[in-house]
């Protein structure tokens, strides 16, 4: 099967404007999540990873679109990828796109169109193909990478520029708040005292290619998607369906469970999600590998999460370093995982990234050297 290579990647987040800056902050233990008092967004103070207000004013683009543009722009410069090449595709992932415009009194449906945002971004860079826009809850970013991998493997495209972003607004905060799902403090994935999520904003972008000239680069080696068929807002009780996508991704990547050197979990820090994930990781027999969740640093960046967290995994592989899972102290799941609590130096040849979301969806990918 055709290999899919990682050509370049970029994270644009409150922690920094590129992958190296982000990873350097993470290694120092610096988090983007902090306390905010923003009454226009939420009645009481809350913890989240947000950009400073005011940095996103442009005549032609919204904050959401600017996030995508700022994550993609340096990649095109760095790689020299030609957006006008008919074998190049732009793939975008988001959950809510421009929905924060509702708070400015805007109601015109055209302003919220995710396809419209996609068209504007494609036009900005000169992509000739219509972009593919994915909106599949919290697996959107991982699903965008899987979609790119499949389109390159099948030969439909040679190169894919994959980017995801979400903006945190009153809409999203009030929604998760209505579910009692937002933590009162910094979130604590997999910990006994975990009580909900922190939200975060940001963007991640990756260039993938099937071109042999990138041999030697990191590769996207396998991936799979499933549905719990159980509940629209609560995860599976058994974790079988997430375990199933892990197993299928391993088969797709032609590797065995014991070859997995590290797992970048979804780890939202809600009681149910983390419990389900721990069961799934154990069921899929990858439970020996070190695990972290990056939600304590970035918060839950929704449609960007799968991309940002996969890119951090790629950088971990380049440096053979596993980051500690911020917020974790005491095991709080029934099937304990090997949660990483300190910066760890270890060879990382095969890594697993998982994600799950509303609607009962699960996704996994395998990255390798």
């Amino acid at each position, binding site marked *: 099967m055709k290999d899919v290579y990682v050509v370049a990647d970029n994270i644009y987040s409150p922690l920094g404007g590129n992958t190296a800056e982000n990873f350097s902050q993470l290694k120092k233990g610096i988090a983007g999540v902090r306390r905010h008092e923003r009454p226009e967004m939420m009645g009481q103070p809350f913890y989240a990873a947000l950009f400073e207000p005011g940095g996103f004013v442009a005549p032609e683009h919204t904050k959401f679109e600017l996030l995508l543009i700022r994550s993609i722009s340096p990649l095109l410069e760095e790689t020299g990828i030609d957006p006008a090449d008919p074998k190049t595709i732009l793939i975008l992932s988001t*959950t*809510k*796109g421009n*929905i924060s415009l*509702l708070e400015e009194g805007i*109601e015109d*449906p055209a302003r*919220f*169109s*995710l*396809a*419209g945002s*996609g*068209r504007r971004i494609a036009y900005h860079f000169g992509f000739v193909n*219509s972009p*593919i*826009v*994915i*909106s*599949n*809850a919290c697996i959107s970013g991982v*699903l965008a990478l899987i*979609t790119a991998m*499949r*389109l390159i493997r*099948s030969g*439909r495209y040679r190169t894919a520029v994959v980017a995801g972003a979400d903006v945190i607004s*009153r*809409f999203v905060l*009030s*929604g*998760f*708040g*209505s*579910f009692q799902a937002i933590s009162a403090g910094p979130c604590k994935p997999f910990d006994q005292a975990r009580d909900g999520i922190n939200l975060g904003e940001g963007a991640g972008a990756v260039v993938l290619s099937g071109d042999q000239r990138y041999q030697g680069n990191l590769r996207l080696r396998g991936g*799979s*998607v*499933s*549905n*719990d*068929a*159980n*509940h*629209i*807002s609560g995860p599976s009780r058994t974790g079988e*369906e997430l375990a*199933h996508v892990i197993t*299928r991704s391993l088969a797709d990547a032609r590797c065995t469970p014991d070859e997995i050197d590290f797992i970048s979990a979804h780890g939202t820090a809600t009681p149910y999600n983390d419990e389900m994930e721990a069961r799934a990781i154990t069921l899929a027999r990858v439970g020996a590998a070190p695990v972290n969740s990056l939600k304590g640093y970035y918060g839950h960046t929704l449609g960007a999460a799968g991309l940002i967290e996969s890119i951090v995994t790629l950088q971990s592989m380049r440096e053979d370093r596993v980051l500690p899972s911020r917020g974790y102290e005491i095991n709080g799941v029934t099937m304990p995982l090997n949660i990483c609590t300190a910066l760890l130096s270890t060879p990382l040849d095969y890594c697993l990234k998982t994600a799950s*979301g*509303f*609607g*009962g*969806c699960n996704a996994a990918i395998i990255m390798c050297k």
Partner: protein
Amino acid sequence: MEYITASCVIRNNRIYRDGEIVWERSPAGPADFLQSCYQHFGFQYPKFYKMDHLSKLGWLAAEFLLHEGFDPAQCRPEEMAVVLSNANSSLDTDYRYFASVSDIPSPALFVYTLPNIMIGEICIRNNFKGENAFFITESFDAAFIATYVRDLLGTGNARACICGWVEVLGDRYAAALFLIEHKDAGLSFTAENMIGMYNLNQPA
């Protein structure tokens, strides 16, 4: 080879199964249409009442699609995929949810502010546990859907797939769902055949 073994198109107050009209209602908007359809056909699925318009429309279309001829025993749950698309995501419910925010934000509405919840509802109803994807395109991009679904079936990631287009915004709604299987029956699985079914009997 993959075939379109069943189709359901819901447009302009009419429901078509495999190109044949099965029900028609005088024009009165999606709320009336969806409710009347559910009652007329005697569906028994209390969760239907909690769904937003988009999920109700997708759910009903899937019921007609799978009503006859599809044998769920021929696939394991993990082999059944659902790949859907539309233009306006969950915007119809986003407006409704946001109107609730200034009062008491409604978790029952918020959960429907993601378009793939409709996929979840169809999967729960039918115990489908395979591949999922929700794509946003300005109009029904049958060529892309065909490419994606053909790849899923061709690489063994799925054995059968429900795919198509389900859109609701304000008074406008449309659905076109297709059941794609390896068995040699029905129309061959092409973008042209999906578009042909979608536009069949529609005013120009």
